[in-house]
């Protein structure tokens, strides 16, 4: 379990991170979300012990950060790149050595992961001879070769095709079932929604919202329904109860005024148009993200 308490990081006069707290439970994926420049990287760097926080504490499995901590964290930075002119196996052994693995173990683990990710044939090739997707796989292996118990992945899916994305997703899920502590930072809300149990949304260095994703969705509220129509369309002018309507081919998503009870609205609707589907829907994480960030920037 990783606990970050009241983290503050100041660069000269700018507050990059302003009093952020988070708890990452083992066996769960924690989503660190926020727009560009929100302070995600700074937060990650302090957790990684790359930079010292101005104040606040970071506790992993009951202990504050020590030198040993370096050997149990794995980190995949957002921007990708490796020693282009070096051999795949050499690079992997080097990163393993920096995590205190013996050469023999390093080679064994490297071979294991290369096989698992279907790129064993490139073992003795130079990095620059590999496709971009395969280079990223190598970097992912470099981040996990030492079997870290705390794993920080910054945008791990960008640049992968759907097949490779699936492979990487399976890999991450296998770490979850092993009980690793995982922080996942991304802009892809759909993925975060599928993978993360807990999230922290930050903007301008401050926490905008945090907690269990299901709770956040519940609290975010919004009176949303989805209706399928047998024929015809609903227009906003017809019903004063509608705040916003998105029409799709087979259904329409409707946001109702907060004081309207959905079932009452359904009754009214049935009288006018033939309805073949009706459901109450939760807001998407994407919507929550956009709305909250907008609201937050309006408040400043």
């Amino acid at each position, binding site marked *: 379990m990783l606990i970050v308490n009241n983290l503050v990081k100041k660069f000269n006069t700018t507050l990059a991170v302003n009093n952020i707290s988070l708890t990452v439970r083992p066996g769960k994926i924690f989503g660190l979300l926020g727009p560009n420049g929100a302070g995600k990287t700074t937060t990650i760097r302090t957790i990684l012990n*790359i930079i010292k926080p101005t104040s606040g504490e970071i506790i992993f499995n009951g202990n504050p950060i020590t030198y040993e901590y*370096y050997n149990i*964290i794995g980190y995949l930075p957002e921007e990708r790149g490796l020693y282009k002119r*070096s051999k795949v196996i050499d690079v992997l052994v080097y990163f393993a050595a920096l995590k205190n693995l013996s050469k023999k173990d390093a080679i064994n683990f490297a071979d294991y992961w290369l096989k698992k990710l279907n790129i064993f044939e490139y073992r003795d090739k130079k990095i620059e001879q590999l496709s971009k997707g395969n280079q990223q796989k190598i970097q992912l292996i470099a*981040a996990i070769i030492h079997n870290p118990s705390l794993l920080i992945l910054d945008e791990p899916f960008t640049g992968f095709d759907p097949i490779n994305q699936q492979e990487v997703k399976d890999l991450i899920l296998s770490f979850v079932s092993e009980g690793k502590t995982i922080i996942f930072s991304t802009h892809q809300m759909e993925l975060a929604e599928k993978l993360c149990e807990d999230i922290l949304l930050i903007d301008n260095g401050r926490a905008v919202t945090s907690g269990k994703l299901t709770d956040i969705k519940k609290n975010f509220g919004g009176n949303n329904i989805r209706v399928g129509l047998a024929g015809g369309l609903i227009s906003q002018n017809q019903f004063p109860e509608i705040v916003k309507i998105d029409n799709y081919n087979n259904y329409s998503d409707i946001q109702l005024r907060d004081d309207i009870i959905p079932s009452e609205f359904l009754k009214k609707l049935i009288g006018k148009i033939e309805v073949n589907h009706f459901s109450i829907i939760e807001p998407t994480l994407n919507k929550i993200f956009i709305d909250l960030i907008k609201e937050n920037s309006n408040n400043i």
Partner: protein
Amino acid sequence: MKKILAVAKWEYLEKVKTKTFIISLIITPIIIILFSILPSLLFREEAPKVELIGVIDTSGVYFNDLVKELDKYKLEEEQKNYVLINFSFENQIFEELIITANKNIEKNLIEGCLILYHAGSDSVSAEYRTKSLGNFKNVERLEEAIRSIRLKMKLEEEGVDTRLINYFQERVVVKQMQVDEEGKVSEGDFITTFFVSIIFILLLMMMVVYTGQMLVRSMIEEKSSRLIEMLVSSITPDELLTGKIIGLSLLGLTQIFIWSVIGISLVAGALIPLTAFNNIVPMLFYFILGFLFYSSLFVGIGSTVNTEQEAQQITTYLSLILMLPVVMAMPAIQNPDFIVTKIFSYIPLTIPTVMILRLNIGNVSELEIFLTFVILIFSIFIVTKLSAKIFRIGILSYGNKPTLKEIFKWIKE
């Protein structure tokens, strides 16, 4: 410690395999060989071949004496250096004689032609025509010969005793000897020792520039790909820096080792006289310390740059500083106690190169060597400390190049 060694090993092995390193290994010795053979070729005492020189002397007064005078210059195995040919044919006028001589020079039949105007009178003047104007030695010898012939003629005319004339003609040669610290006197071979020190300075400069550039380039790669973040989430920046400096120094030592092998074989091949290496021990020390000093400087500065161009600029400035002794070599030779030279021998940036130069042009006291060693070692220590501070922040800052003010702030943090 294990991790530091891992970094050192990686930096060393990955760079030793690069093209830049292999090229620097090959090109530099070629330059050394050129520099070490060139002086001995340029300053050979005797020309290696017999030279034919035409003489136009319508008076006939000088020719025979000239032959006698120039006979004293010998090649190996007692061969004459010069053979003079009388170009003053009786049935030709002066202008025609000159045209004939010109043709002979043109066709390379003779090396050159000495033309004496108004040879019979006191206001004699001479001209030496040749294809290669650079041969100062021949002109000097001809002048010397004519001067001594005229002196002898005049003295004989005035009835001076022949023995006295011979006495006047004798020249005293001043031989240069070098006295060292322990009072030992030796025949110093100035030119070669001088060139050896220039070679050492050039070697140091090239090594610093090559390895420095390699280091900065790899740091730019690590920074732009954010690899550096994976590195510093595995080891502390200080460990990374130490590992890099060790790796770089090993790289330097490899170069020195290979070049020494080449150097030793050159000495063995008698291409460079052993006397040129009288000061080899302190020179090597200055060399290695200088390299360490510049390496640690490069690591600090290198961590602040983001692009190849910025890196190029910095290496250019540093190599200019390293080249400084070559610029001040001449004033330093003429006056080893020149104050500017002395000042530069106490500035860490210029200690290695200036001291290598000074060691070979004059005697440097042991105290001075000791002091400069202390200054240099102390500065290596300081620069490494400062570099570590700059490195710690520099590796994580992207975008614009930091200003000097910002860098000072990093150091203070």
